[in-house]
């Protein structure tokens, strides 16, 4: 009898492992699925700026945002991540990558070696980008100067360092769906929604996260504690500060970093503005139109600030 129970338990364990293994197989975009495509470098540049690639992948503490050697430290509750080199360097960057490997990395969060990337790389948002935009982005990145040197390894403790576990995270928080336009809205609104939720990955910082580090879907874009540590990230639905901003104010802010109060973007947003300021007036107007259309959503309660002095 005991032997049978043990056998059943062992079988259940093996089955469980099998399910885990199957569930966490890293998704890949097959090269054959990519139809012939003539890269549009100008659109690749737009994708680069909308995606804010330079915010994390540009070498920190130097002025050239096209020097994509990586190295920026991103602290999080799960450990510290270091942005990798995405310059076209053949050894340290993405110089030897195929187009399908790049599309897989950005849309599926899977490395050319077939491992899951950590979600600090915002593929949970990038997955909504079009394949064409990502292919153009790849072509654009290849035109930039190669930068030598690898960034240091992530400093992430057990159990979060087991990359296979990220497969479960993806199963929970990544739906793999491209952006679906809303026919009831204007083309400009749809463009804005696409940029905000896809390449722009605004929700990655402007949303609260649960204990697994997944975005709390019901409070998307409603702000929360800064995932990088200190302070609070503002609610950008119509419940927060943006309720008092016009569509023009939001677009102007994304272009210049100037708030209607005459203040300037603080914290990491200053880096974001360096990217959004490069976007066209139409794209910025679309993002502003979309953000202004968001329903007011109450974010998590902000803790009382420590008394000054």
């Amino acid at each position: 009898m005991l032997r049978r129970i043990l056998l059943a338990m062992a079988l259940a364990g093996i089955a469980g492992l099998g399910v885990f293994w199957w569930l966490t197989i890293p998704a890949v975009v097959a090269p054959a699925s990519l139809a012939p495509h003539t890269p549009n470098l100008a659109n690749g540049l737009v994708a680069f700026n909308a995606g804010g690639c330079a915010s994390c992948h540009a070498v920190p503490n130097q002025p050239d945002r096209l020097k994509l050697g990586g190295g920026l430290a991103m602290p999080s509750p799960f450990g510290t991540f270091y942005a990798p080199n995405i310059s076209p360097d053949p050894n340290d960057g993405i110089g030897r990558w195929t187009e399908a490997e790049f599309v897989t990395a950005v849309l599926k969060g899977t490395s050319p070696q077939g491992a899951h990337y950590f979600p600090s790389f915002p593929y949970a948002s990038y997955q909504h980008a079009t394949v064409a935009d990502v292919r153009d982005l790849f072509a654009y990145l290849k035109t930039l100067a190669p930068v030598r040197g690898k960034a240091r390894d992530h400093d992430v403790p057990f159990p979060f360092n087991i990359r296979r576990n990220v497969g479960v995270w993806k199963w929970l928080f990544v739906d793999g769906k491209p952006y679906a336009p809303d026919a009831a809205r204007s083309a400009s609104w749809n463009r804005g929604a696409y940029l905000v939720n896809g390449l722009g990955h605004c929700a990655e910082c402007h949303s609260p996260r649960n204990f697994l580090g997944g975005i709390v879907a019901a409070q998307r874009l409603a702000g929360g504690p800064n995932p990088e540590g200190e302070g609070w990230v503002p609610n950008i639905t119509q419940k927060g500060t943006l309720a008092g901003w016009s569509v023009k104010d939001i677009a102007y802010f994304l272009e210049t970093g100037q708030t209607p109060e005459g203040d300037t973007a603080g914290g990491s947003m200053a880096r974001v503005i360096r990217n959004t300021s490069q976007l066209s007036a139409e794209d910025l107007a679309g993002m502003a139109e979309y953000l202004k259309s968001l329903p007011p959503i109450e974010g998590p309660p902000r803790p009382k600030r420590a008394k000054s002095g």
Partner: protein
Amino acid sequence: MKRILVVAGALLLSVGVGIAQQDKVKQDQDVMKATGRAMGAVLSPMVKGEKPYDQAAVDQALKQFEDTAKRLPTMFPESTKGLKAEGDFSASPKIWEDKAGFAAKIASFAKAVTETKAKIKDLDSLKANVPVIGKECSSCHETYRVKNS
């Protein structure tokens, strides 16, 4: 008894100094807020086309910037180091750790104000030059201002 008085006096004095320094932080914050209003309530709305171009208002806003540029070099004495301001932001310790860098930012702001003032004559020149000043605000805030946690 005498000693107690001396100690009490010294304590009172230091408390007084502490309050005075906190007042100084508040005053400086008011200067920054007035500077922000000159940008956000006067210049930006004209650039955005929400208000008509008004030379007198522009001159006044630029005068505010000049005034701020003059005050900035003495606005952050050693005595206010580490004090937190009410609201969203405080001065970063970097102001005192990298005095040369901070002074260079102030000089750059003052230069931008002087240069743009000579250029702003109508809406088009305003549109071209307000971002120049705005960039000065951002780049200094990015390094020398921190979010209150």
